[in-house]
């Protein structure tokens, strides 16, 4: 790794103990996350194929489109995106506090609870026990586990934050702490007001729309930007441009972005869509602020990068955030929403936000963090590069045809003389291309999962060797315990 230089504390190289303390939580969270990512991609493929071949697996109630599509979405969001985010968050908190992770066993327990919750939830959705609310489909057993697991992970994160010696907060702190507060709040609200003690009538639709927007746009924005604002300056070798602009983006995101979501055509009194439309137009501010930060930070970057490395993932992620944000704002304009509402443009924007922005950012972050935490490189390094190119192409092939197909669909729906069958058929060629995109994403996800599993296996193997060595020779020469693990670390240092 880098040699220690006589510099002030801010630029000092990090203590490897800090990285090592995050390893097990990171593996627990991202290992399961990678598995759900692959499963979600498979379910998404099945759902997508059903449009081209309606008879595909039509006799199996577990795989009917209405169950498989929400299951695929939930597997991506709850199965991959959130646990991956939490793992990366823990590492960032530890690093920024310059202290090892507090209570490192708690996130491991929580990770298992989380993955169990996702499993129960997905099985519930496929079995027909979905709650019927978008992004809240998991039946009660699953959602309670998810809520508990999230709180369990938030506790060590906040405790680690409390360990910091430097009082000045870095912008990522703001974003990530707000994310730790906001998810339990919106998730509890969604489950209480819609599932446990449901409100009456169309208020359910209003709260559901609020939840969906706050989860996908605001929460993932907070978490993803928090991670990006930490990693971008690192990769670029420049300071973040600037502290105040990042805070401005933060405040405008939580003040304006949280009011988006109510669609213009919803069967709700006019004040709700009106507020959302105003909020969406104001959301251009944080989106532009993020774009400005990214632009200024990356311009003049002296850092050389590996092609297809983590830096590329993060850059693609932030660019996708800006694009997805612009799409959201455009689709909230009353004139445009007349055409794009209820079309494939909505899923296109969601997929761009979830996959193009958030998942890619998490890929980049995990590809950067995991080797540092484990102390050794990915066993299948080239696959990571290939993953980047496949995923980039996959996202483009998924989102672009969906967006264009949505526009075609929207114009046809707006024309009363076009029959519904013709509208559906007109969107089919675009769906075919997006299915190809999904296939590429599935391949990329498999590569990612392979790398994570390889690291896990290598770590477990090293752990096993350590345990065997500890049993065999409790007292080593000079009282030094050798561990295969530590020797792997030393190997890396020697290489560097």
């Amino acid at each position: 790794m880098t040699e220690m230089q006589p510099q002030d504390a801010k630029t000092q190289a990090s203590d490897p103990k800090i990285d090592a303390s995050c390893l097990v939580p990171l593996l627990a969270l991202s290992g399961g996350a990678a598995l759900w990512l692959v499963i979600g991609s498979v379910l998404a493929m099945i759902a997508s194929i059903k449009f081209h071949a309606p008879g595909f697996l039509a006799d199996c109630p577990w795989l009917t489109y209405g169950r498989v599509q929400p299951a695929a979405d939930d597997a991506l969001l709850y199965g991959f995106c959130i646990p991956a985010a939490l793992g990366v968050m823990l590492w960032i908190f530890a690093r920024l506090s310059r202290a090892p992770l507090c209570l490192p066993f708690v996130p491991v327990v929580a990770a298992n609870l989380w993955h169990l919750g996702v499993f129960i939830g997905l099985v519930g959705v496929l079995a027909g026990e979905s709650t019927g609310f978008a992004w809240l489909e998991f039946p009660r057993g699953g959602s309670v586990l998810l809520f508990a697991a999230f709180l369990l992970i938030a506790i060590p994160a906040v405790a680690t934050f409390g360990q910091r010696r430097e009082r000045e907060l870095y912008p990522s702190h703001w974003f990530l702490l707000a994310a730790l507060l906001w998810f339990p709040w919106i998730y509890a609200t969604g489950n209480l007001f819609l599932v446990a003690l449901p409100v009456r009538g169309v208020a359910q639709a209003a709260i559901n729309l609020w939840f969906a927007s706050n989860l996908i746009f605001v929460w993932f924005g907070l978490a993803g930007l928090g991670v990006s604002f930490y990693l971008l300056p690192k990769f670029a070798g420049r300071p973040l441009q600037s502290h105040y602009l990042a805070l401005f983006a933060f405040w405008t995101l939580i003040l304006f972005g949280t009011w988006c979501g109510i669609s213009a055509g919803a069967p709700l009194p006019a004040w709700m869509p009106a507020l959302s439309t105003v909020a969406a137009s104001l959301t251009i501010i944080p989106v532009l602020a993020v774009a400005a930060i990214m632009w200024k930070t990356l311009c003049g970057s002296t850092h050389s990068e590996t092609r297809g490395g983590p830096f590329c993932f993060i850059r693609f992620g932030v660019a996708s955030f800006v694009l997805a944000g612009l799409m959201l704002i455009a689709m909230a304009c009353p004139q445009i929403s007349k055409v794009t509402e209820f079309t494939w443009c909505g899923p296109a924007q969601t997929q761009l936000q979830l996959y193009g922005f958030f998942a890619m950012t998490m890929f980049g972050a995990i590809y950067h963090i995991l080797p540092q935490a484990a102390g050794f490189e990915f066993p299948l390094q080239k696959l990571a590069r290939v993953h980047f190119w496949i995923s980039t192409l996959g996202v483009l092939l998924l989102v672009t045809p969906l967006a264009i197909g949505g526009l075609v669909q929207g114009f046809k729906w707006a024309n009363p003389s076009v029959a519904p069958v013709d509208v559906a058929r007109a969107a089919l060629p675009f769906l075919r291309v997006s299915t190809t995109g999904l296939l590429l994403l599935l391949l990329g996800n498999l590569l990612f999962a392979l790398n994570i599993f390889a690291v896990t296996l290598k770590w477990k193997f090293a752990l096993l060797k350590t345990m065997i060595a500890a049993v065999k020779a409790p007292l080593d020469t000079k009282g030094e315990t050798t561990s295969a693990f530590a020797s792997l670390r030393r190997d890396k240092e020697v290489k560097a």
Partner: protein
Amino acid sequence: MSDEPKSCSTPFDAEPTASRSTVPMWIVVLTLTLLFLGAVYFDHHSGWFNASVYQPYASAAELDTYQPKSGAAAILAQGKKNYEMICGVCHGPDGMGKPNQAPPLAGSEWVNTKGFGRLAHIPLLGLSGPLQVEGKDWSLSMAPMGAALSDADLAGVLTYIRSSWGNQAGAVTADDVRAVRAALGGRPQPMNMQQLKAMAE
């Protein structure tokens, strides 16, 4: 996985820092402009939190103007519906009455009156005893079939009866029925012939 920096001010592994340059003025100006425009949009399009105002109606006042006034057609349609449900069983859907059940309403002198007060009492109080309608004697008993109807509904039924099957009497409004009801008071008994004749039209 990551390359070492070739020439860089901070070592790659160090924590990131943020520069302290100020927020550019253009974004602040843009925020304030959008806030103002947003307020104007809200004023024009929100109906100011009224639970009944849905887009595309801009305000409660506009929604009010678009309420279809109870046109004659609407009142008659509702009155016809209620008549057929409640009265038509005995008086017939064509108002011709049924022997030993109910006298006819078509062409009846009790219906085609200038005023409506006497007629209104019949469904409100019921009627018992011999009655002469269009030259025929009817000695039956009628329950107060209209007592359960609201003022508007009863008015609609009476208007329908008075303008159907050749009858050409004036309409009855809900206010008229309300006035009659209010004047009743006490526990009304079904009327008989003498009481009916004694009443003003």
